[in-house]
């Protein structure tokens, strides 16, 4: 397993430390958390699976595109695979930049592209014992 996928809990503090840089005054951390809400029924956990050999380089391409677009930014991300209980983070993106507008923009770019392109799927595990695939969206390559 490479740098961008992990089978365990995501270390947010470690990602923050990884993007720290003397000249970067703004840092934006995005956390995607497995939620339990009325509209989601009684979801107890989500099981993430991936085309790992492709997801790693695809996530790396996304980050490289962001770094090319926002020079001076530092960006790391972790996507968790396997069973993630409600309330825990499935995805964390940390992005720092000299100025905050770039940190926000880079962060947003990475999450939107990850949602669009990462070959990752999820199955909801319900309290009833049932499980169901979450309807995703058609995957896209580079724009």
């Amino acid at each position, binding site marked *: 397993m490479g740098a961008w996928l992990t089978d365990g809990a995501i270390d947010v503090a470690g990602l923050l430390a990884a993007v720290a840089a003397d000249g970067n005054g703004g840092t934006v951390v995005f956390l995607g958390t497995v939620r339990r809400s009325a509209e989601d029924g009684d979801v107890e956990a989500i099981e993430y699976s991936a*085309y790992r050999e492709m997801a790693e380089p695809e996530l790396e391409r996304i980050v490289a595109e962001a770094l090319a677009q926002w020079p001076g930014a530092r960006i790391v991300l972790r996507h968790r695979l396997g069973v993630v209980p409600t309330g825990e983070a499935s995805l964390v993106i940390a992005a720092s930049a000299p100025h905050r507008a770039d940190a926000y923009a880079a962060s947003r770019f990475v999450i939107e592209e990850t949602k669009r392109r990462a070959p*990752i799927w999820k199955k909801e595990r319900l309290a009833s014992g049932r499980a169901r695939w979450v309807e995703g969206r058609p*995957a896209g390559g580079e724009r």
Partner: protein
Amino acid sequence: MPEMHIRVRLFASYAEAAGADEMTVALPAGATAADCLAAVRAAPWAGRVPPAPALAVNRRYAKGDVVLRDGDEVAVIPPVAGG
């Protein structure tokens, strides 16, 4: 006509429907990713695979007109739901 063997990777609901996460497809030389997809969609389990799903060739998104080579890895990518 020389034959190519293409490794096809299946995921999520497609793998579940197929009862397998990969299959091998034999195709004539010069066949494209779209030809490979047609072979996959001919399988009895493949009713849920749409006519134009996202495809990857050798772990990178690709259009259907990409010409395959023997030993290539093709993936039929179900709608994604990462994040």
